[in-house]
């Protein structure tokens, strides 16, 4: 019954608001008249009676407000009214509204976009059960903490001796040539230990997983097991379930298909998807000493599943103990220990630091945005002082006014948040596209529900927080003072207000300086990087990988000669050569080295990079021979073993000596029988070529002729006269006429490798610069706003000063100080913060320190200059005031 009545009242109040209000108005008026009438009967004159009656009744609007407040649904009604009123007001004040909404959108857009990327790359859990317990175990040198891959014997001992892991599995990626119908196909695959799938908690969609005994090579006539990816099964085997048990040929060897993984299964997570898995048995077979028997052959990644409840620290303690024991048991190897890294973190890899930097930057931007919005709202609040005073006079209570102001701010922040979210979605799309290829887990990056919630939270939070402070300030009005219209000139409130805004400007300036410094450092570092001499000319060189015949299967040298001759015959090809590893790719081989005349036990030998190259490699790369000679066709397998070293090698191992003619013994002895690899004579010194990225300092490096140190596959390098991309087709046809079974793969130009090496620095620099520009613009707006405010506030004072004979210059100085003081204070604070904060950048910087003195001098000056410019406009306006007019103002 009661409910129905309230519902009826509610509807009536909402629908017939106008009628009810008019009715109430009439009722109160009649009350006043009746009251006056009564007084006249007591002998008061009619005019007097009316005045008394009105005074006794009180304000008409206040009574009406009181009645409205008790009506059912008053709250909703008020909210609707506030929204209507707020929207109207914002519409009238479009410039202010647009500015605020854009600022909020920018802040929320940038933050949400970067957080989406960070979340996708670094935090989103892996799509495996027990993802949180997956840990990468790296094997590193005790002395340098470098390296990360493990040897198979070490892995077996780790697995047998530990009590902290439920399972350990080893894997490496590798490419396989699948011969079948038509063209042979090059497939990206993985060589894994049998337990990998069960460790990850994933079983094949069809067929079975590997059996433990399949880690050992099959009998001489048998075939190793292989598991196919869902995509490969669909593409090459027509989704035929009967594929299980069939034999396929990979790299000429027979393999039995035992299973097909479920769709979307992806591990190891690599730039290119893995399409098939086989067991470690492929490394155990073959003649000589297989890789899996060499404790010194570090080439496997190891992943472990921690036992439930075991902490990373405990696991590390035990594994370090085991590794220490192994080093003691095998003194012939350099001592190694382990590092344990959660799998999620391991996968973020090279993007980790850049993303952390960007996250810091984006938080700075968000803070600046919040401060700016606070500034805008405060300014808006002070402009509305009088309106609010009038509202109080008309009977509005304080809570009501605060509510009204909050509603307006919430409208703005929600609009900004919505726009920001749209911006974020667009930005994420762009970011994913320009993301460097090294970044794993792209497909995980998206703006999902949690991040939408995050954006909504930030916008509401900033709306309430930064709306509330000014709302309370504004609502705390001395009625009489403000209605007298000289509130700005009188009282300490105006000054406190200006101080508050000065503080905001200071904070903005400080944050802007931090971002600007960071961006400038990165920008300079990027310029340094692009100007780095990589030691070769990357333009117009096509590269591709090719399996060459092994010495037992054919004559690699003859194959190369024949193929090179055909490629060279293509018009436009300048030179052709090949190498085991390419510059800038970072996948160079490490080898121990013994210097003639300095016999050292194998455990403590120095290490250097090792590469194996064809004749003409340095010419094709356009790398200069500093001393001695290049390899020639005479440096064959049967001739004296020779080696060319780079400048760093020469300086490090032969300081103040001529290395030409000296002998060294690289630890890699491909092409020679078992036992110690041969001593090689140094015949030349080559300039330093950047092997592992542009930032890395050149490492000592040795080059042996491919004929004396055969490798397969090798990278071919073809220098061309015009755009090298156009030559891939014709070279493939040349290869086809020569040999049918081996495809070309990894076709890329050296320029592309160069750009890839720059991609992460470019991305970070670009984004950080964008953030810095936004920050500076916002800070500018802040300074401009505060100076304009102060100028308006002191118009009267300026008028008096000018009337008393102050010169324009003095007035300008007066006003400029108002803007510059907080800006300079903020700048100084920014320098202090940056001295600490830029340390985060140190690993990203090349060619300068994180506290580069020149940058730290120039940027604060720049910031001050910008603040000066932002203050100049309002200051000039103040100086050009007509004293008469400014005194008449208000």
């Amino acid at each position, binding site marked *: 019954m009661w409910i129905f009545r309230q519902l009826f009242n509610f509807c009536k109040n909402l629908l017939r608001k106008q009628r009810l209000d008019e009715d109430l108005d009439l009722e*109160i008026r*009649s009350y006043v008249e009746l009251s006056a009438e009564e007084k006249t009967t007591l002998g008061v004159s009619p005019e007097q009676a009316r005045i008394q009656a009105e005074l006794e009744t009180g304000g008409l609007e206040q009574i009406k407000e009181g009645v409205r407040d008790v009506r059912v649904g008053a709250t909703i009604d008020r909210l609707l009214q506030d929204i209507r009123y707020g929207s109207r007001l914002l519409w009238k004040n479009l410039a202010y509204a647009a500015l605020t909404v854009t600022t909020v959108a920018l802040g929320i857009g940038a933050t949400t976009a970067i957080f989406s990327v960070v979340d996708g790359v670094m935090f989103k859990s892996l799509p495996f059960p027990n993802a949180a317990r997956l840990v990468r175990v790296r094997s590193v040198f005790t002395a340098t903490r470098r390296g990360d891959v493990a040897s198979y014997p070490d892995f077996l001992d780790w697995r047998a001796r530990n009590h902290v892991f439920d399972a350990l599995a080893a894997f490496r990626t590798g490419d396989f040539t699948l011969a079948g119908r038509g063209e042979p196909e090059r497939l990206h695959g993985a060589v894994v230990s049998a337990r990998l799938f069960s460790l990850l908690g994933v079983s094949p969609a069809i067929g079975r997983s590997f059996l433990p005994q399949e880690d050992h090579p099959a009998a001489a006539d048998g075939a190793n097991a292989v598991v196919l990816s869902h995509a490969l099964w669909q593409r090459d085997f027509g989704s035929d379930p009967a594929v299980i048990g069939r034999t396929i040929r990979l790299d000429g060897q027979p393999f039995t298909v035992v299973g097909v993984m479920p769709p979307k299964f992806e591990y190891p997570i690599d730039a290119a998807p893995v399409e098939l898995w086989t067991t470690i048995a492929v490394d155990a077979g073959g003649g000589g000493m297989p890789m899996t028997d060499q404790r010194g052959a570090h080439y496997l990644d190891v992943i472990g599943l921690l036992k439930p409840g075991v902490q990373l620290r405990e696991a590390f303690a035990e594994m370090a103990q085991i590794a220490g024991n192994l080093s003691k048991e095998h003194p012939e190897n350099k001592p190694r220990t382990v590092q344990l890294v959660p799998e999620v973190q391991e996968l973020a890899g090279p993007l980790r630091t850049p993303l952390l930097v960007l996250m810091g930057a984006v938080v700075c931007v968000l803070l600046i945005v919040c401060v700016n919005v606070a500034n805008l709202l405060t300014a808006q609040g002070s402009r509305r002082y009088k309106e609010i005073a009038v509202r109080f006079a008309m009977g509005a209570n304080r809570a009501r006014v605060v509510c009204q102001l909050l509603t307006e701010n919430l409208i703005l922040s929600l609009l900004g948040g919505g726009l920001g979210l749209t911006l974020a979605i667009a930005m994420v799309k762009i970011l994913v596209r320009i993301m460097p290829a090294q970044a794993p887990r792209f497909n995980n990056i998206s703006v999902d529900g949690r991040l939408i919630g995050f954006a909504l939270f930030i916008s509401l939070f900033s709306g309430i927080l930064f709306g509330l402070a000014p709302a309370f300030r504004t609502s705390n009005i001395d009625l009489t003072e403000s209605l007298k219209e000289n509130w700005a000139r009188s009282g300490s409130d105006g000054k406190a207000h200006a101080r508050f805004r000065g503080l905001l400007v200071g904070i903005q300036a400080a944050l802007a300086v931090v971002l600007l410094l960071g961006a400038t450092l990165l920008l300079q570092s990027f310029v340094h990087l692009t100007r780095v001499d990589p030691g070769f000319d990357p333009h117009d060189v096509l590269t591709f990988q090719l399996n060459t015949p092994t010495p037992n299967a054919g004559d690699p040298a003859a194959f190369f000669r024949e193929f090179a001759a055909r490629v060279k015959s293509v018009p436009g090809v300048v030179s052709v050569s090949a190498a085991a590893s390419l510059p800038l790719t970072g996948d160079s081989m490490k080898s121990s080295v013994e210097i003639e005349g300095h016999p050292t036990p194998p455990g403590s030998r120095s290490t250097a990079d090792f590469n194996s190259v064809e004749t003409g490699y340095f010419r094709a790369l356009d790398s200069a021979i500093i001393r001695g000679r290049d390899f020639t066709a005479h440096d064959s397998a049967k001739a004296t073993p020779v080696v060319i070293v780079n400048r760093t090698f020469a300086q490090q191992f032969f300081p103040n000596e001529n290395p030409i003619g000296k002998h060294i013994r690289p630890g890699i002895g491909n092409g020679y029988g078992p036992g110690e690899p041969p001593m090689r004579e140094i015949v030349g010194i080559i300039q330093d070529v950047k092997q592992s990225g542009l930032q890395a300092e050149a490492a000592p490096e040795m080059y042996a002729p491919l004929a004396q140190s055969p490798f397969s596959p090798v990278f071919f390098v073809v220098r061309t006269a015009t755009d090298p991309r156009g030559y891939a087709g014709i070279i493939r046809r040349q290869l086809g006429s020569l040999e049918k079974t081996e495809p070309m793969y990894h076709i890329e130009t050296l320029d592309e490798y160069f750009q890839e090496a720059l991609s992460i620095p470019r991305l970070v620099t670009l984004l950080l610069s964008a953030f810095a520009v936004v920050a500076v613009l916002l800070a500018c707006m802040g300074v401009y706003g505060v100076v304009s405010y102060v100028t308006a506030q002191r118009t009267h004072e300026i008028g008096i000063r000018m009337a008393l004979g102050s010169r324009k210059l003095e007035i300008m100085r007066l006003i400029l100080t108002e803007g510059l003081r907080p800006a300079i204070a903020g700048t100084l604070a920014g320098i202090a913060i940056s001295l600490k904060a830029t340390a985060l950048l140190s690993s990203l910087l090349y060619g300068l320190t994180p506290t580069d003195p020149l940058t730290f001098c120039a940027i604060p000056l720049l910031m001050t200059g910008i603040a000066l410019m932002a203050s100049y406009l309002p200051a000039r306006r103040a100086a050009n005031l007509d004293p008469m007019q400014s005194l008449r103002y208000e």
Partner: protein
Amino acid sequence: MAQTRTDILQGTLDLLILQALALEELHGMGIARRIGQMTQGAFVVKAGSLFPALHRMEEAGWLTSFWGESATNRRAKFYRLTKLGKRQLDTETKDWERISVAISQALRST
């Protein structure tokens, strides 16, 4: 002074309005005057408290209102008790009596 007195006894305003309307229907001014008479001038009900109370009670269903003419032929809004209002008056009167007896006893008991 009247202001402070009404403030203290705000809770009794509803009861007084109901009592004022118990005999006859009245307009706002009339209710204020009647309350003054009934309490021998101890209560001066101001328009700022009277009107919100009237509207609240009307929404609660204790009163109904209609436009009519005053004794001096002026248009005025009159209020009348409903059945619900009469019942409310009864309960509130009983409550009040119980409370006032209890409080008087408490004050005398020292």
